[in-house]
């Protein structure tokens, strides 16, 4: 990482880690308790959470209700400037997961077909519950909207996201 004199809130590791924690806490299980999130899917959800405009167009393409976006996310400079983060930055995700794991917030299960599936420890749930104000409140709203995506296959989801991102 190149040290810059500018502070970019959006790239802060803590913020992004908290975001991943929140995602896993809200969306790791189906209504029946089956684990959903592997690396790929988690990265997809992460991308959607950071790009609400892409989130909405993805939801719409699956026929789901879009989320209510803040004025911040609709009418800003960022909304008209494309987010250039590559969709497949697994390295970044790995760092985040390591952090979370080191704090004993993460659990995993291995499934043969899908790889490692993630969930949270009790401690993890507790910490996640504390993330509820300001920015996190907004993100929770997005999670609600994303819950409908549980029925979509991961590969379909990723393909659609890629399409809607560009």
């Amino acid at each position, binding site marked *: *990482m190149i040290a810059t004199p500018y*502070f970019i*809130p*959006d790239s*802060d*590791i*803590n*913020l992004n*880690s*908290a975001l991943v*924690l929140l995602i896993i806490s809200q969306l790791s299980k189906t209504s029946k308790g089956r684990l959903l999130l592997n690396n790929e899917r988690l990265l997809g959800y992460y991308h959607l959470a950071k790009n609400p405009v892409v989130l909405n167009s993805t939801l719409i393409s699956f026929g789901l209700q879009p989320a209510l976006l803040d*004025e*911040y*996310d609709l*009418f*800003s*400079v*960022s*909304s*008209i400037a494309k987010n250039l983060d590559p969709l497949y930055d697994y390295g970044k995700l790995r*760092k985040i997961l*390591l*952090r*979370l*794991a*080191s*704090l*004993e*917030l*993460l*659990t*995993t299960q*291995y499934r043969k077909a899908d790889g*490692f599936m993630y969930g949270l*420890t009790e401690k993890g749930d507790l*910490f996640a519950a*504390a*993330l509820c*104000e*300001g*920015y*996190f409140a*907004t993100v929770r709203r997005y999670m609600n909207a994303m819950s409908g995506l549980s029925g979509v296959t991961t590969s379909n989801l990723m393909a659609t996201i890629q399409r809607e991102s560009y």
Partner: protein
Amino acid sequence: MPAQKPSLLIEKLVLVGRRKNYTIPFRSGLNIVYGDSATGKSSILECINYLLGSSKFVYDREIESAILYLMMQVTLNGNIYTIKRDLFDAGADVEVFPASLDAIQEIFPQKYSPSFEKEGQDGYYSDFLLSVLNMPNLKMRQAPTKDESPLVRLSFRDVFQFCYLRQDDVGAKNLLGDGGYRAVKNRETFKYLFNLLDTTIADLQTEISVASANQNQLQATYKAVSDFLRTVELKTEFDLDEAIRDVDERRKIANSEMQRINTSLVANNESYVTLKEMLTKISARLVENEADQTETDHAIERFVRLKNDYKSDIAKLKSIRVSQQLIGSPQLMFSCPLCESAVKLDELQHDHQVVSDDKMTQEINSLTRRTKELDALIDRERSRRSVLLDESKALLSDRDDARRMLDEEMGQAVTPYLAERDSWSYELAKLAEERKNIERNIKIRNQQKQIFKDLGDAIEKINSLNEKLAEARNNAPSADEVLADLSNTLFKFLSYVQISDLRDVRVDSKTLLPVLRDRDYRDTTSGGLRTILSIGHFLTIAHIATLRQTNFPGLLMIDTVGKYLGKTSEKYSDTDIREDSKESVADPKKYLNIFRAMLSLGESKLEPSIQIIAVDNDIPPGFAASHPTTIAAHFDSEGADGARRGLIDDAYLY
């Protein structure tokens, strides 16, 4: 007073063309047309011949493509006529206007048929020419020695044989006919020229009675026409002229009134101009206002977007604080959630980006401050925008007012002018119509005048015929006298031209052709000598015509004076070259003296004067400089020294 001798003077030949007209002017006396071959010199003589009634005109391609019809202004026994003839239809009537070229619009023409095959609207062209030139219109015996021979008319064309020495005929052995019918006719015509025809007196009597009948006819016509015009109350010439003057005056007035209205229409509208200016200004300000509004809108959008970004950043920063507190310090060593084995996080050390709380707060404050500044900017732009909007409303309403006022102003100001202008327009149209009618009536009056003049001419003609009759009775010339005169004159001519060995020069009483050294013209082997003899013969006839009472029209046309005189090309080869050189026909002095002889014949002081038109490829050196007025036309196919390139002088352009 002796009867008026025939006098024919060509004044101007005009070939009316598609692109332009081609004109050759002529004068009395000698006229020379010289220049390169194929420039149209012979065509000029052919045009004159055609306009004097020849049966056809052989035209070259240049004339065929460039010319529509021919016209010629002539003076016949002191009266001016313009003759017009269609180039391509030789059977159509020849039109004769009793006026000069520039006045033919004011008069109706007479139409005569050039051939005896059908009669033209006003008769035969030959009869007209003979009549107006005061020449007897006779019939002669076809076989002159037989009393009971049928009679044929002697036409103007027969006489014209002695006026036109064609290029092929100069120095030709068969000059004036080859012994056949033509030669017989020519001999009879020759006698007619010198009043030697036996039938003269009887014919004159016939002619007098015809002329009297004609005069009576004209008298009746004139009376009928005059009565008719009086009945329909056609105004007199004087009144018509005055009427035209009056119409022209009124037209002038109408035109100047129209002018006045048009200028007033434009000038008298100060308030219109002011309003128009105002309207333009308002429109310009509206455009500016629109541009400003767009600018403000863009600014507002930019600022609001930026503000939202700041707000978003502020929220995120606050969340980072929370996150840091919660998960900001990861353990460097922990056990893997899956397999419980130890995990070491050396790499995380490098990643550790702890932002101090102070820094965070600083950042949040700075962003908050900037957000407030943006709010101020946004407010400022918003109020500016509302000002612009108000201004726009006001301008739009002003513009509508201005437009409305402009229309009202226009309507009020223009309408009365338009009405007045319409009435003057109508007046002008009426006046134009009136003028046309008056012009037509003037033409009719002119026609009546012409009839009256014809009547006068007819009476005069009868008088001169009576005088001729008296003279014929008194001094019927003898053939021998005439031949003696002709022979003497021919001798003088030949010695002037410096022909050597001038023995036995005469005009033979049987052939009526020249004889030199007891050798008939036709037996002369030297072509050059024949040329000189033939030209001399024609010149002699013309000369005697100025002295005696004859029926010669006073016009002589000679095509190619220098034939066989060492000047023409191989085209003419019917000559004995040795004889030619024995006679030294190529001597330039001889050539010069021929021209001098023509000149003096043309300048003879006796009345009427003779007109000679001579055509050649060349002229004696210095002649053009010493006698410039005799040059009617000089053609140079290259156009050197600004000379005309030919008769159709713009043919080289197409």
